[in-house]
């Protein structure tokens, strides 16, 4: 019985299958709450099957990887490789706890998302697209397409090169992350520096998670306080016109002046506190959704128009600066 419960060895084939699952399904269940969380857990399933044999261990491993995760799927694969290496050591008795694995994931996902997006979406894609658009027969500044002859070659060129280059990068980083990660983790374990490493990782994890909180969580409060020329106070849900005096937005002109980013930070800390107190995340999700929808209802004015105006007169605005999207030219 005990022999059956021992973790099996992770082979290259397991990691390769994990890569396939990740590459296919990294965005299959992309969502606002935890971004690629289920995709990460999904990619870990071949590893979890091999390493953990009791229901308790399997449940713990699945839940460990069902947390907020977001990175660029191709370059970010280095994280998965490293995490697989850590899981391997953990299953074989090394003192690597949930916090350690989470710290490493949190610390790496942010920077690798930035680097990865710059490489794949920001560099390779536009360069190949520009070449493809040229090959398609499009001439810069052309206003009448009927004078041009198009060629499917432009799109075909783009499809082939984009796919080959991106997949090559993705496979390389994933496998290298595992191979190097394993060497690194084994070395660290042998030298007894693991505890210090985990301590450092949790510092990095917190710094990056803080920055991620700032970049992901957004609250845009529209109500203003108006101070008239005669000193009279007025309150409005959105900037009132022609009242004279000064209009102060409660968030950008008052709260942010006290401490920048106070409102989103408060929301994050409140959520953390509520979850810590044992509030069901599903209930929290429903509450937040209702608040968002009610807050976006135009109680105080006309329904906003989609094409010409994204602002309207609701309490919460969807975008930071109330800029109207590009209007179509008739």
């Amino acid at each position, binding site marked *: 019985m005990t022999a059956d419960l021992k973790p099996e060895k992770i082979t290259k084939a397991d990691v390769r299958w994990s890569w396939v699952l990740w590459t296919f399904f990294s965005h299959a269940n992309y969502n606002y709450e935890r971004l690629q969380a289920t995709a990460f857990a999904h990619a870990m399933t071949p590893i979890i099957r091999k390493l953990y044999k009791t229901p308790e261990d399997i449940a713990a491993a699945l839940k460990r990887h069902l947390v907020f995760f977001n990175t660029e799927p191709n370059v970010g694969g280095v994280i998965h490789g490293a995490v697989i290496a850590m899981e391997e050591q953990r299953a074989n008795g090394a003192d690597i706890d949930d916090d350690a694995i989470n710290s490493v994931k949190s610390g790496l996902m942010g920077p690798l998302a930035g680097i990865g997006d710059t490489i794949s979406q920001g560099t390779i894609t536009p360069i190949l697209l520009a070449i493809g658009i040229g090959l398609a027969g499009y001439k810069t500044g052309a206003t009448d397409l009927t004078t041009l002859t198009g060629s*499917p070659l432009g799109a075909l060129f783009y499809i082939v090169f984009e796919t080959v280059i991106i997949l090559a990068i993705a496979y390389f980083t994933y496998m290298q992350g595992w191979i190097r990660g394993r060497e690194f983790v084994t070395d660290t374990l042998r030298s007894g520096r693991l505890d210090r490493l985990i301590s450092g990782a949790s510092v990095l994890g917190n*710094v990056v998670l803080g920055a991620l909180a700032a970049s992901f969580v957004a609250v845009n409060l529209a109500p203003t306080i108006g101070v008239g020329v005669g000193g009279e106070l007025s309150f409005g849900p959105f900037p009132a016109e022609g009242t004279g005096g000064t209009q102060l937005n409660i968030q950008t002109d008052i709260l942010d002046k006290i401490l920048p980013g106070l409102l989103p930070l408060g929301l994050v800390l409140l959520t953390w506190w509520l979850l810590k107190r044992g509030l069901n995340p599903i209930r929290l999700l429903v509450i937040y959704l209702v608040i968002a929808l009610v807050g976006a209802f135009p109680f105080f004015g006309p329904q906003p128009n*989609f094409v010409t105006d994204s602002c309207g007169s609701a309490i919460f605005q969807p975008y930071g600066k109330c800029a109207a999207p590009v209007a179509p030219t008739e």
Partner: protein
Amino acid sequence: MRTTLRRVLGVGLILGALMLAVPSSVLAAEGDQKITVSLIQAALIGFGYYLSQGPWLFGMGFFTLYRPLVAGLIVGIILGDPGKGTLVGAAINLIYLGFISAGGSIPGDPALAGWVGTTLALAGNLDYGAALALAVPIGLLGTVIWNARMTGDTVFVHYADRKADEANIGEVARANWLYPQVYLFLITFVPVFLAANFGVTFVTDILNGLPVWVLNGLAVAGGVLPAIGIAMNMRFIFRGAVIPYFFLGYFLYVVTAGSLSMAVIAVIGLALAALHVYYVGDRESGAALQAAAAGK
């Protein structure tokens, strides 16, 4: 389980390849004549848009079918004029050359602009200017589908949570790759199928008749819901002697108005980590320090 999944992946790949291989000769070109969109063609176009967001093409849908250039080619093939299709796609793609989806949000939806824009341009014989004028608001309309997807998919995460408690690996995996696809198919295929079928007037009617506050509400939710996800991670690492570093990271990002890249923030984080380990040491001494501070 693994073999079933392999089979499904294979079928997905073949379907994707078929999309590319539908011979243009089968769907006869009509030269300069106005192209009419049949039900099957509209369905193929709708399915193509779904594939651009779905996972089936080795995750490459986002890098290929999502781009108007490629969408143009395939709509062209479906409607019988690959050359013109690619050309219109190229023209639309030019607006989205700098498109980057980062942090779970998109500034516009190049795929919807590409798939629907090219269809309307070919079927309605629109010129470049008119096609482009339509493609921009259509791209904005795509953010609606995106927000609906990003909000609706949270359901499957909580389902996965429940199944993880039961140690049900297969269900957790399916909560990622299978169930969300049914939902995604509905919200991507149906609108594009209808748009391709009913044409320009239908699209403009939609643009004018949308309940915008609902869409704005979903966008607001897009800013609020990540708080739950972040807070869940915080339960693991936001504790002990390292709590202040979270605030450091937060305000580092806020005061620089996001102009510091995450890579730079990570380098600063690494430097702090080195200092922290040097002066505070490992977890145990960190915890001891904290306990001592709390005791005083």
